[in-house]
């Protein structure tokens, strides 16, 4: 800091005074100089501060800019703290039965691919590969390996032993990619329900698994959602029951030389399908291809859901129930039953030319399975009311069950629902529906009279009653009639001691494939049953295709000889597993 200059230096003042000048000018000049000096230093300081501030801003902007550039240029990446090593696993949720036993799960396998330009000895590799996989062609492999291709799949999925064998070839051009594949540990069990999967889009490191049919396809979205990876899809099926039912049905089908068989076991109150079997079946681990003409012969064809058949006399109970519901009849009302029943040029007779006339009670009509009496009842009900009633039981639409195939299996209705249609539908001809339709309708009618929706998903929470179909008294009376059929009617083989089985048989001739009339010696037999009849818990439908019982002198094809004994054995084996105690008193009485 320089010496401070006095504003009025004495020497200059005296000098000025002596020369007669105003000494104030000296002071003012000095003051001005001092102010100028002060201004300069202040400006310098301010400039310095501005510079520092500017540098700060510049560097801040540079940092922000650089960071932006870095973010823009780098690859997007999950923050490390959030990554999980589990994301690759459990891509598809498991499917389990109602007790949590696994029906479908995943396993890790490997796919095999080749990068020919990396190969050391393509000829040797091709030879060895053809040895490991007999279905590969050595010549074709050599052509692929020595050609211009840079990449080729050899096998989509290989077993661990095969992988080891390929490792032993030791060629760096043979590479493995991880693959998750679907495993159905129970083999053929519940194959129609589970359906199957296939690979969707494929990459080296992973491949998509997509549902191909059955519930795998229907619930594909749920199963594929990564959020559900640890939440298995729980079905209403019971694995033990399913296994037992398949065993019994399989035995019955072979004993009776049937072409196919189907069975549905449904909880009457919730509509849950506890077991559903269709035979012949297939192994969903390796879905078979089918080249035949008739779709119904395909093992992948689900007879219980897709097979629509005329279900025959099992329909008679609907006519009886509706007559009671409408108040036209009581179980004891007498109905004319003298054959033939004439309508226009058509006449309707009884099975094998029986005559149950002149009068039958409504119960008697069901017990004897009288076509003529049912025709009278159906005629009284009329077209409109019958159609509405069958609609309320779900016979006019495809079943809403959780299978892809279900929506395509629409019942076959008469194109023109005339009075004649009403009469024939009364005893089960002219309307084709699937066994699952029948199970739903029987459950709705017999559980006290409220509509159920068939489902394969385990029921949670309290039971919500559906819309009312019939009054509880009508439901009880219908059960009593069905019980009478088993106790004294056409289904006497169906009486399982202690379980109060009630049911109705149905035998329908198979329509010819060319659409002209019916076969004489090919029938579809059905037994629709409920047990226990006094306090209904389950409905069981058993259908057999072209079954014939040959122990007698003459082959017998009616349901009473084919479907009924099989159903009885199913109930005898399955009811204890379901935890239903037999009525001990009747059990003891019977013995």
């Amino acid at each position, binding site marked *: 800091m320089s010496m401070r200059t006095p504003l009025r230096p004495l020497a200059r003042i005296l000098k000025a005074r002596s020369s007669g000048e105003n000494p104030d000018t000296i002071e003012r000049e000095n003051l001005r100089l001092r102010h100028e000096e002060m201004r300069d230093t202040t400006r310098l300081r301010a400039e310095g501060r501005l510079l520092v501030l500017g540098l700060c801003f510049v560097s801040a902007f540079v940092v922000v800019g650089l960071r932006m550039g870095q973010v823009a240029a780098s690859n997007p990446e999950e923050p*490390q703290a959030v990554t999980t*090593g589990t994301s690759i*696993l459990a891509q598809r949720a498991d499917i389990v039965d109602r007790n949590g036993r696994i029906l479908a799960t*995943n396993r890790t396998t490997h796919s095999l691919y080749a990068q020919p330009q990396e190969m050391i000895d393509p000829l040797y590799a091709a030879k060895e590969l053809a040895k490991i996989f007999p279905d590969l062609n050595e010549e074709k492999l050599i052509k692929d390996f020595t050609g211009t291709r840079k990449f080729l799949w050899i096998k989509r999925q290989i077993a661990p032993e095969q992988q080891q064998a390929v490792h032993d070839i030791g060629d760096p051009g043979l590479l493995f990619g991880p693959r998750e594949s679907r495993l159905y540990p*129970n083999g053929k069990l519940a194959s129609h329900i589970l359906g199957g999967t296939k690979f969707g889009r494929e990459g080296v490191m992973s491949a998509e698994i997509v549902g191909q049919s059955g519930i795998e396809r229907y619930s594909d979205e749920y199963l594929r959602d990564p959020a559900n990876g640890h939440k298995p899809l729980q079905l209403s099926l019971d694995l033990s029951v*399913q296994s037992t039912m398949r065993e019994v049905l399989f035995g019955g089908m072979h004993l009776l030389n049937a072409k196919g068989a189907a069975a549905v076991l449904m909880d009457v109150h919730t509509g849950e399908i506890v077991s559903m079997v269709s035979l012949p079946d297939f192994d969903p681990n390796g879905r078979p291809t089918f080249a035949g003409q008739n779709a119904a012969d395909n093992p992948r064809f689900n007879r219980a859901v897709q097979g629509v058949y005329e279900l025959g006399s099992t329909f008679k109970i609907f006519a009886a129930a509706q007559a009671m519901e409408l108040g036209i009849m009581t179980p004891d009302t007498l109905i004319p039953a003298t054959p033939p029943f004439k309508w226009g040029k058509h006449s309707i007779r009884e099975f094998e030319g029986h005559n149950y006339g002149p009068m039958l009670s409504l119960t008697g009509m069901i017990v004897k399975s009288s076509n003529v009496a049912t025709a009278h009842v159906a005629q009284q009900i009329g077209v409109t009311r019958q159609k509405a009633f069958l609609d309320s039981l779900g016979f006019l639409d495809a079943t809403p069950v959780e299978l892809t195939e279900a929506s395509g299996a629409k019942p076959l209705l008469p194109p023109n629902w005339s009075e004649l249609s009403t009469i024939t539908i009364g005893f089960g001809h002219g309307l084709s529906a699937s066994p699952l339709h029948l199970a739903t309708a029987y459950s709705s009618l017999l559980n006290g009279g409220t509509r159920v929706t068939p489902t394969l998903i385990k029921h949670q929470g309290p039971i919500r009653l559906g819309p009312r179909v019939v009054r509880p008294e009508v439901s009880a009376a219908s059960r009593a009639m069905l019980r009478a059929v088993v106790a004294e009617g056409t289904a006497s083989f169906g009486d399982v001691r*202690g379980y109060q089985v009630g049911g109705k048989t149905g035998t329908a001739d198979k329509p010819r494939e060319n659409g002209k009339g019916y076969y004489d010696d090919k029938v579809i037999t059905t037994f629709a049953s409920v047990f226990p009849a006094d306090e209904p818990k389950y409905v069981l439908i058993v259908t057999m295709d072209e079954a014939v019982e040959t122990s007698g002198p003459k082959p017998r094809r009616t349901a009473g000889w084919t479907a009924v004994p099989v159903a009885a054995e199913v109930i005898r084996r399955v009811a204890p597993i379901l935890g239903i105690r037999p009525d001990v008193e009747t059990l003891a009485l019977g013995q």
Partner: protein
Amino acid sequence: MRSVYIVLSALFVMGLAVWAYKENYATQEVLREVSQIQRDIGHQQEELAVLRAEWAYLNRPSRLRDLAELNFDRLGLLPLLPEQFGDVTSVAFPVEEDILMELDNPVSVVGSLEAIVQ
């Protein structure tokens, strides 16, 4: 006084810097550990899935049925049938002996009475 503040705040800033440095490395270490654990969990889950699949495969009903048939001599397992249900009243219970009558010393009497009250 002022210089003391300056020195103290400088020391404070240095302390913070050391702390931040340490935290940074500790965080990285923990992140490494977490990813290692996640990997382990992944492997364990993979193993678990394989074991569950194997368990389900070994317990498939058809195999169990065959095993029950093969080992019928030793196990004597039969399918569950309605006849196997019984009534509780038809089960013979062991006859209970009257404990109190057999007692001869007071100590056990006290103990047994408590048991009876319960």
